[in-house]
């Protein structure tokens, strides 16, 4: 479904990704793990169009995404849940979800999408008139994912969903992500919490200093000694 | 001696001899224009000391006005010689700048906010001058009380050539100060501050002190420029010296010429003054306002199409032309 071939990207003089090649098949859940500063967020931003790739190819469902702006890529069916959630703090929960369905394709199925999101995250239905900024971290993360679902995507990009959340909340969150996956969405998640995320996904890539160092089935990777020792926990 | 040095020396010689070159009947007018260019370039350079570090002030008219009015009022009412009055004006202006700069630096008022605060200060000064019309003359302005004949003490001279040389020296002093700041530790500190204040503070750079220092220096120099202007024109007016109009013109000239280079403000000022004069001569009294209209239009176009200024763009072009030559020589 999604394929990156030899993508290089960065900011100004700084190159954050070197020669990155990865793929995500329809229906899969794939993770990209790695330490801080390895370029995981840049990777997400390249796919969603916030950062332009300097070289390489970016293909989604046989269509090239090269040079496309962020708001165009959404209409192709990719939803990006950014690092730090980035919900609209002064808008209500309901309005945040409304914004998720901004583009015409999503607006048509708005009512149906909303029901689906509220079923997955009942707490959002409870708090729909509340200012999004007053929600707890975990609730905000749910809102951010719900908002992405409102755009009726095929592929969901999750950037560090567990960041800043208490361990109990992290477990609940990953359960919810599992449920989202079961609804049929393809997922690409970037995470520092290696242990938890490997339990969730089919395959994973290891990104270090901008390069893919390893890839394989999640079960195999979690066996790797140095992965366990170096990146365990937090 | 490099080409640049030779050209510079030649230009300086030309300027020094200026008043004695045969100019036909245009002599006095050209001297007048050159004096304007020198003084406003000096002022532009003073502004750029702040502008180049991200402290974009839209209120330098305040410092100009404070400098000009202080020296004029001290002379008119107390017969205080402008040599002392000018210093007093500069000191007063620096104090005002300190009062404004301190909270701005402490509370991290930067960018658009800072521009608008300075705009407010400029307006406050202008309105205060107009409000206190009993002794400032209000919107009608104030004339410098004439001294009897030429007077060094009163800094008033009938011969424009004296002002020409004085303003030439002033301009050169301004360049020297710019150069010294550029080479100083302060420059590195200010650039760090401009890029990331918190990071700069964390390595021990005393952010407030540097920002205040550069603001006070800029304000003081601008005030001196105001003093020079007042002494030459012998007339001060709140709208020509303290409003947003004059503040914008200064900023335009500097950005047009190039904010980050020594001669940028001079190039920009010379061009904008020359342009202004050309347009004024072209339209004369026939289409009042048309000259300024075209001026405004050209400024918009320049900003859109030449964002790094004329000097900056020229330097880029020259650098790009020089590069292939160097490359070729290296591969031999």
């Amino acid at each position, binding site marked *: 479904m999604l394929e990156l071939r030899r993508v290089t990207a960065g900011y100004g003089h700084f190159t954050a990704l070197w020669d990155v090649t990865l793929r995500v098949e329809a229906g899969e859940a794939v993770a990209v793990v790695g330490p801080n500063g390895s370029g995981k967020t840049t990777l997400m931003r390249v796919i969603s169009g*916030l950062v332009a790739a300097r070289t390489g190819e970016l293909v989604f469902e046989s269509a090239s995404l090269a040079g496309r702006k962020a708001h165009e890529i959404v209409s192709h069916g990719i939803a990006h849940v950014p690092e730090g959630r980035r*919900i609209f703090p002064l808008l209500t929960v309901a309005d945040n979800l409304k914004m998720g369905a*901004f583009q015409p394709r999503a607006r048509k199925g708005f009512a149906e999408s909303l029901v689906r999101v509220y079923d997955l995250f009942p707490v959002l239905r409870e708090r729909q008139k509340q200012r999004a900024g007053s929600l707890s971290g975990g609730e905000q993360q749910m809102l951010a994912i719900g908002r992405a679902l409102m755009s009726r995507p095929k592929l969901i990009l999750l950037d560090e969903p567990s960041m800043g959340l208490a361990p109990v909340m992290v477990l609940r969150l990953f359960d919810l992500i599992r449920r989202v996956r079961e609804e049929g969405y393809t997922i690409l998640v970037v995470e520092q919490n290696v242990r938890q995320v490997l339990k969730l996904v089919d395959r994973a890539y290891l990104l270090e200093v901008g390069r893919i160092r390893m890839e394989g089935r999640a079960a195999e990777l979690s066996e790797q000694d140095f992965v366990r020792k170096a990146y365990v926990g937090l | 001696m490099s080409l640049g040095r030779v050209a510079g020396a030649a230009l300086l010689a030309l300027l020094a001899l200026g008043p004695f070159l045969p100019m036909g009947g245009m002599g006095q007018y050209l001297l007048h224009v050159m004096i304007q260019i020198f003084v406003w370039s000096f002022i532009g350079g003073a502004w750029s000391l702040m502008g180049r570090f991200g402290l*974009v002030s839209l209120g330098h008219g305040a410092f100009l006005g404070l400098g000009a009015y202080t020296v004029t009022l001290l002379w008119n009412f107390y017969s205080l010689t402008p040599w002392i009055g000018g210093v007093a004006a500069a000191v007063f202006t620096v104090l005002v700048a300190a009062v404004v700069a301190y909270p701005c630096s402490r509370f991290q008022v930067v960018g658009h906010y800072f521009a608008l605060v300075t705009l*407010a200060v400029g307006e406050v000064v202008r309105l205060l001058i107009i409000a206190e019309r009993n002794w400032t003359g209000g919107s009608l302005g104030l004339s410098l009380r004439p001294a009897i004949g030429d007077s060094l003490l009163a800094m008033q001279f009938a011969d424009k050539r004296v002002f020409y040389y004085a303003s030439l020296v002033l301009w050169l002093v301004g360049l020297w100060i710019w150069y010294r700041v550029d080479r100083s530790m302060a420059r590195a500190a200010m650039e760090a501050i401009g890029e990331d204040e918190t990071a700069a503070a964390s390595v021990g750079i005393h952010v407030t002190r540097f920002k205040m220092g550069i603001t006070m220096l800029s304000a003081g120099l601008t005030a001196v420029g105001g003093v020079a202007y007042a002494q030459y024109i012998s007339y001060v007016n709140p709208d020509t010296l303290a409003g*947003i109009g004059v503040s914008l013109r200064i900023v335009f000239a500097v950005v047009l010429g190039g904010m980050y280079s020594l001669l940028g403000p001079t190039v920009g000022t010379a061009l904008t003054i020359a342009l202004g004069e050309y347009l004024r001569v072209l339209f004369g009294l026939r289409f009042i306002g048309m000259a*300024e*209209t075209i001026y*405004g239009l050209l400024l918009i176009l320049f*900003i859109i199409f030449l964002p790094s200024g004329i000097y900056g763009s020229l330097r880029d072009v020259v650098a790009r032309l020089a590069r292939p030559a160097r490359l070729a020589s290296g591969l031999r």
Partner: protein
Amino acid sequence: MIDPIFLVEAAVNGVLLGGVLALLALGLNLIFGVVDIVWIAYVDLVMVCMYLVYFLVMVYGWPLWLAGALSVALGALLGLGVHLLIITPILGKAPVNQLLATGGLLFFLQSFATFLWTTDHKTVRLALPILEVGGMFLSFTRLIAFVISLVAMLGLWVFLRRTYIGTAIRAVSQDREAMALMGANPQRVYLVTSAVGGAMAGLAGALLIIQYSVHPFFGAAFGPLTFMICVLGGLGNMVGAFVASFIMSEIISIGGVVISTEMGYVIAFIVFIVMMFARPGGILARRG
């Protein structure tokens, strides 16, 4: 001592003035908050619309309400034009360049107006009565302008809160990038915002020409004041701008009666500078 009735009258006039100032401030704030660029020439756009209404009503004999409607339309068009021609090329450039682009527009508009219409003051005289309420004299014209301003601001509030595009505009002002991830083309949102801001300038123009006279340098009088109100209320904060408008207008009005017109403005500006230091984020600062 001043007769208290003059103070109350000044206070009431302050409120009436505040209404129209709020209209200006909200329009400017809207654009400021979304596009993140200062339109230094905003009030000069108002000036152009004021001239339009003047000519339509005084020279061509149009009814005021129709001229006002056209003024709103012109304002919206001007807003679009400014964004397309001047703002779009400088998006993302250095702030000083952005300030100068609209600064150049200021010069252009003021001089062009001087060229076209000279520096004579022009005003639209309405034969509306002066009301006497409890010993105070209030201009009916001012009252009508105030009411219309309030209605317009209410309309704006409804637009921003209840409509889809209005909510999108608010969202962009809170997080531009996140909104792009929702599929919103930032340029389209900017254009709508600029048109609405321009329309408000057009309406303000129609309401101001019946109270004040227009001349090419009208922007120099009301411009700085409008900016300060926006910043005082907190950038992008509509409620803040609304409140700040009345604070400033009260200071100006009462100060004007107690001391002098200019000092009223001076005090208001000094209050602004002091507030900038006390609460740099604006008096109702919510966003850090």
